[in-house]
């Protein structure tokens, strides 16, 4: 499903990634690990065409992403849910509206939005807080909203960049459990983290990009 072959990324003479090779199969859960600055975020960003490799190829569902036209990038991103360390929620919109945004950009409106958003908010146990604004929620709750927004489009892949970076251990466990539950339903997950405890909790394949 996802294939990185001989991927290099450099900014001038500074190489972030050197000859990165790995594949991810459909329905798999993998951890991408490495110290800060190793290129974990860059690796994930390449999958949503936010970064492009200096050399090598990144393929998603058999399509080489470097060859993608700018107008096709939004449609690629709708197939991939992205969860950020800093949540990236819109502070002037409620929990419900933030999650609904994921569907609205795809052209889904009305009753479908109400049904899908309600379902996903129940799954992340935030339905009762649907009318609250993100800033009134705890860090863990905000991250659950971000996960709900990423998953409401029913993406084929969920990318999570240090999703528990700002959270305590107990909350991190809840977040991992939620992500795992969606993985069990068939969503492929790539989670970037340097947290060894989280990797232990996840019990999944680990790609250490320090070696690349």
């Amino acid at each position, binding site marked *: 499903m996802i294939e990185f072959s001989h991927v290099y990324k450099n900014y001038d003479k500074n190489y972030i990634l050197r000859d990165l090779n790995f594949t991810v199969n459909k329905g798999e859960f993998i951890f991408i690990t490495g110290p800060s600055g190793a290129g974990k975020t860059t690796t994930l960003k390449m999958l949503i065409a936010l970064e492009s490799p200096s050399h090598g190829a990144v393929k998603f569902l058999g399509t080489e992403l470097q060859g993608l036209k700018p107008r096709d990038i*939004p449609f690629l991103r709708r197939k991939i849910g992205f969860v950020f360390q800093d949540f990236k929620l819109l502070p*002037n919109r409620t929990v419900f509206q933030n999650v609904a945004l994921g569907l609205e950009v795809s*052209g889904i409106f009305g009753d479908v939005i109400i049904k899908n958003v309600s379902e996903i908010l129940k799954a992340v146990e935030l339905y009762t807080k649907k009318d609250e604004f993100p800033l009134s929620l705890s860090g863990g709750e905000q991250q659950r909203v971000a996960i709900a*927004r*990423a998953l409401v489009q029913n993406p084929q892949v969920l990318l999570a960049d240090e999703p528990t970076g700002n959270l305590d251990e107990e909350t991190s466990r809840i977040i991992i459990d939620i992500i795992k539950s969606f993985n069990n339903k068939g969503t492929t997950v790539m989670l970037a983290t340097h947290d060894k405890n989280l990797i232990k909790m996840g019990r999944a394949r680990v790609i250490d990009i320090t070696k690349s």
Partner: protein
Amino acid sequence: MISQRVNYFANYFKIAALNIKSNISGNAFAFLIMSFSFFIMLFLLLCYINIYSYMSTFRKSNVMLVFLKNNAKKDNVLNFIGKLNGVKSTVYYSDKSSMKFLEKRVKHLKSILKNMNPDNLPAFIKINFKDNAVSGIFLSNIYLRLKSLKGVKLVYYNKMLQNRIVQFMFFTKVVGLILFLFLFILSIFISYSAIKLVILRKQGEIEILRLIGATNNYIRIPMFIEGEIGTVLSFLVSILLLFAIYKIFIFYKFDSFLEFFRIKIIFLNPQQIAVVFLIAIISGIAGTYLSSKKFF
């Protein structure tokens, strides 16, 4: 498919409303300046239309009036006129008959003429030219010759006034066009600044929308709607303001005063309003396009 497009547009309007709400002061400022520029545009057009309409009331005339100085020898002047080619007839009006002439011609000034001393009025000669002899060059040539004649105080003919109005019209056209162009660019710049402000304030939000799969159109169309809402509202306010001023000052305050000078002020017709409205719409679109182009 159609219902999805309707939903898309409904959503664009919703986002535009949210954008306006989140930048209420910036939009209010832009709205005020745009209203002002559209008002000036409409006012200029109104002035031009009225000057043009006033000018069209002047008919082509073959008459020239030669006003004489006090104690001037009329026979010398009449002899000179008699030798001119193209003259159909001449009528001499003494200062006394000048009054009768005025009373007959400007009946609406009767109340003023009543208190006037006929001795203060000049004697004059009215010359009627043959139709085939009248041309701008011919009349201006005669005008210059008569003006230099001894005993002649003033020479007046309609064509001269007409020419002066044409010159004035040309001047107003040039100045109006420059002002119009300036205001058009100003309104583009205002739309540009208002939308640019929205983009700068919402850069984070735009980034998030892009990350979750929003197309450029999804982000830009609400901005165009926002720009156009501002433009349409500004235009409506300016046209209503101009109409209110027209109603108040022309019909209720200066109606009779202007009538005195045979000036009848007319308001812009729907086609003229539509042209300015179109210009306003284009300025809104251009401003939004230029401001958002830089970011996409």
